[in-house]
């Protein structure tokens, strides 16, 4: 079944406008639980209370506060928030292009497919040009009262728009303190390189399956039928040994596996 478009807009690139529809590229497969009260096995409700008196505070009475410093709030009204909303627009503006490696993995947030909404030729031509030039476009748009920045990519002939996090949300590794301790010795580096070398491979998405999610769902179904199996307790793991011996052992066992294969 085809998915439903969540938004319609126009890709603006140079003087050209390409009408597009936006589709989520993500499916929610989380096993969703509800919180129940244990006596009646009914879903619980939530409310906000004053922590001192325990009295309920209704939605109309709640004020929003921005915390300046611990315990010090500036009151922000709904009108304030409305005045901050960006102007509605249907335009997805592409401002610049960068090589994919210029965007660290940390920035990517959520992918959306773009579908042509009329001009198919321009749509597929842009996808092909992005692929040929090995570039990602930096896009800006406003969707549902929120301003977004995203990366426009070409993937399997199609255009994909991945939202990017805001600069305030992303910490650079350069700003973190370097870990303490001595630098690795040449011998250790050689061993580690060998170890990594033995585990080298390609990223193959088909190798990864959420087995745990499947087990949980299976267990729920069994339990619903009154046939849940007894589960064994979890054993605790051994303690870690010294780095040297760990590397040695890992290398040996991996080499053995390789020979056996």
């Amino acid at each position, binding site marked *: 079944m085809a998915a439903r478009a969540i938004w319609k807009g126009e890709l603006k690139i140079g003087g050209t406008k390409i009408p597009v529809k936006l589709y989520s*590229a*993500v499916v929610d*497969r989380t*096993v969703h639980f*509800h919180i*129940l*009260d244990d006596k009646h096995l009914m*879903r*619980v*409700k939530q*409310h*906000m*209370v004053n*922590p001192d008196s325990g009295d309920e505070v209704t939605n109309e009475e*709640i004020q929003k*506060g921005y915390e300046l410093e611990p315990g*010090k*709030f500036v009151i922000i009204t709904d009108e304030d928030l409305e005045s901050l909303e960006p102007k509605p627009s249907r335009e997805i503006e*592409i401002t610049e*292009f960068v090589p994919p490696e*210029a965007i*660290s*993995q*940390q920035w990517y947030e959520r*992918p959306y*497919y773009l579908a042509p909404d009329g001009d198919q030729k321009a749509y*597929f*031509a842009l996808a092909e*040009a992005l692929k040929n030039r090995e570039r990602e476009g930096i896009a800006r748009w406003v969707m549902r009262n929120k*301003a977004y920045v995203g990366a426009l990519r070409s993937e399997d*002939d*199609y255009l994909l728009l991945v939202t990017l996090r*805001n*600069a*305030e949300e992303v910490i650079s*590794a*350069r700003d973190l303190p*370097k*870990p303490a301790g001595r630098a*690795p010795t040449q011998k250790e580096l050689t061993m*580690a390189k060998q170890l990594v070398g033995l585990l*080298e491979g*390609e*990223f193959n998405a*088909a190798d*990864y399956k959420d087995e*745990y999610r499947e087990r*949980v769902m299976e267990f*729920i179904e069994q*339990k619903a039928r009154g046939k849940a199996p007894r589960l*064994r307790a*979890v*054993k605790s*793991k051994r*303690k*870690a*040994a010294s780095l040297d011996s*760990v590397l040695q052992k*890992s290398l040996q*066992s991996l080499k053995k596996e390789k020979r056996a294969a």
Partner: protein
Amino acid sequence: MLSPEGEPLSRKYYSEKTEKDLDADEMVRGYEIDKGKYVVITDEELERLAPEKTRDIDLKVFVPEESIPPVYFERGYFLTPDAGSEKAYKLLAETMEKGGKAGLATFVMRGKEYLVSIFAEHGILRAETMRFPDELRSPEDVGLPKKTKVPKATVKKFEKLISNKSKKQLSRTTLGDEQTERLLKLVKKKSTQRKNIIEVETEERDEGKVIDLMAVLKKSLAAKG
């Protein structure tokens, strides 16, 4: 969220039947199998359901850094070494960074299985949680139209445009959030006017628990031998 008097509020759960607030030990987790009918699943059951091999972070494969499509990435976490594991940390970080490799692993934590890729940058390890392949739609799932033949001239036109507007780096200012900046400006304006400011006594807060992935990682290496 604050009360009309400006006190920070707390969120409470209550039973609709008794209208009483509930403590954590008066609540259970339920999966809805039919409307209003639930199967109760305990923390212990969730923990015991985790396959043994997934209880530690086990780096199974190292792949070229740029070979994982960005659609998989969900959220990044910096990893810090635990006391005593600095050596292993530095060694792994240096080896991966020099080789341009990312490590892939799966593990189970708090009732959820995670697929992570681990990257090394400036001597720091970072884990990126990833979507599983079945959490991503394919173009066919979405119902995207088949590719049509495109005029070469149009492709050329876009290629030229891309080249003209290409930059080597992405600047942080490009990724600034105007909405947040405007909110912060408003907050500043209001606070200098000394209007709408509320002060309350604070209690010590529970800082979110930091998970020491390195310790788990090291344990998993040890368990291999």
